[in-house]
């Protein structure tokens, strides 16, 4: 069984992913954000490690470029912290895919990460991971319908103990 998953040589898929990431430079260079081949490789490795650490498997790829394009206009990204933040964001993305029990789609999760990163967290991935998204993931797991409203939910959820609203 396991052999079925490890069949496609990772070098081939990595090359494709790196090319896809570097292609994003065309759109992000407008904001002064550019990734080299080495940066792209680093991101791809981060993704593989995150997938393996969180027990996930990816088929179509494209998450890294989606993150890059979505975050390119963030006021908190500069060329100095660009690669490091992207690495953190990739890891955060897969962590919360698990924590939200796959209930949130890729696009929605990326837009939520972007929203909190730009607004409440003021560009801090640490705050995003440990404050905002812990509550959000908890809301999703407990089936709270307006899970995005984490501030209201934090106050009420302890009384509700996770019952559907």
């Amino acid at each position, binding site marked *: 069984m396991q052999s079925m998953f490890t069949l496609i040589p990772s070098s081939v898929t990595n090359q494709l992913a790196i090319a896809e990431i570097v292609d994003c430079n065309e759109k992000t260079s407008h904001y002064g954000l550019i990734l080299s081949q080495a940066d792209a490789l680093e991101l791809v490795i981060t993704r593989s490690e995150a997938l393996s650490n969180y027990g996930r498997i*990816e*088929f*179509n790829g494209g998450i890294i470029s989606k993150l890059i394009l979505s975050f390119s206009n963030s006021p908190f990204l500069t060329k100095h912290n660009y690669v490091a933040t992207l690495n953190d964001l990739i890891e955060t993305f897969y962590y919360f895919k698990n924590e939200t029990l*796959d209930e949130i789609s890729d696009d929605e999760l990326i837009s939520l990460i972007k929203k909190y990163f730009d607004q409440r967290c003021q560009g801090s991935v640490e705050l995003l991971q440990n404050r905002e998204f812990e509550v959000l993931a908890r809301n999703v797991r407990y089936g709270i319908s307006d899970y995005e409203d984490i501030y209201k939910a934090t106050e009420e959820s302890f009384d509700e103990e996770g019952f559907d609203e």
Partner: protein
Amino acid sequence: MNKLEKQQSIIKRQNLNESDYFQSILQESYRLNLLSVTEYETIQVQSLQLLAKQVQRYTGGESSSVKVETAQSIMQSILYVIGSYLKTFPEAELGLAALKQKPLLELYQHGKKLITVQLASAKQLLIDIQTDGFITDNQAYNDTIQNAIPPFFTDYDVNFAAHDTPASIDYPLCNDKMDLIGIEYISNYLETLCLENKFLDLFPMPAISRLLQGFNDHHKDLLINIFGLVLTNALGCVLLGKTITLLNIEPKEREYLQQKLLNLSHTELNNRLHTTLRQLCIDLELSDRSLKNHMIGIIPDLSVRLKNALENNRLESIFISFKEYPLQSVLFEEGNKMDDELFRSIANEIKECRYVSDKIAIIQKEIHSISDFIDILGSYCIFDDEFTDIFQSLGDMELALLLKMIPSGNTIDSDIHFTESEKEWHNRLNTFFSELRLPRQKRIRKLVGNIVFILDRTS
């Protein structure tokens, strides 16, 4: 293809795993050099592509990644579906040829169609079994047929979990093929059960009922295969040359069998059982080949058990005697149970009563069947010493009936089938009984021994 034809039946079916057919066919072919590394890899790549497609369907295209366990389960489902199609080929080599020549997607689609057909016929089989007229009070049988298998047809997911068997089946079959999974298991289970019931229908229901009673007083709650017990005794009847449908084997007849069979070697015993089975089929005018094959399946196990029983002079564990009705037997037929709604309202009324005398009055007025009475006792509406007052209001016959229906004193607390409330009234009844005056205890005990429950055929 020519090479394949020459090497036909090199792949032995017994070397292939029934629940993992697709992968075992690949591994076996690879081992026998019928499949090159390139061909093996091509098939693997195709299965991965199929997996990617199915995962996309699973997530509705909204997520590019899934948990490894989810992917593994979907992959297993894909391999199962293709495996069930490959099983339709008479030779494993033909299946291998199909794997090499046709795209995996095509085989997968054929497999899915096949499973849809299997599902429909299994559904029909279940309806046939539910209406085939075989009635038993064995709880595992009734639960399996009425409650466990029907949800399978709504829960079974051919797209993403075709290898799962979402049904909790208790009733054991004779020679159940436990290596099958998914719809294949359910189909096989229902087909076999249908055959077993067909056989049982050849015997009078009261004879089967008495045979089970002879086997064990608590046969209703046991996980036993009725077909196996009936067939064994029927074989015993053939060996004795008596009417098969009687099913009963008297202790003296067992002694005769003991003498007749004791000196046979294992092979001779096996051969004797085969001959007896053939005779049984002739006597019962059985022509169904699958039923005959199923009956033959009992012999290997039976001959071992029989040999063992003969050596230890314990033939009563194989050939069962009916329990004799006591001379002054009391035949008891259950009255009609009230409907659930009415029962609930009466139970609530009893619960709300302040005085036990009121509770007794309601019970005497409203409850007309022993089952309802027992349900009331175990419905958390009678408490503590009230049980004693209620038992005091009962006559000898009612107490005897209650005592007959509860398990013996030592096993009450350890029996997981009863609720706490039921255990409480069982214990209280036993205490109440032990405190009665000895002559009354004797009278009631005699009645308990004489009561014979008659199976309600309409239930």
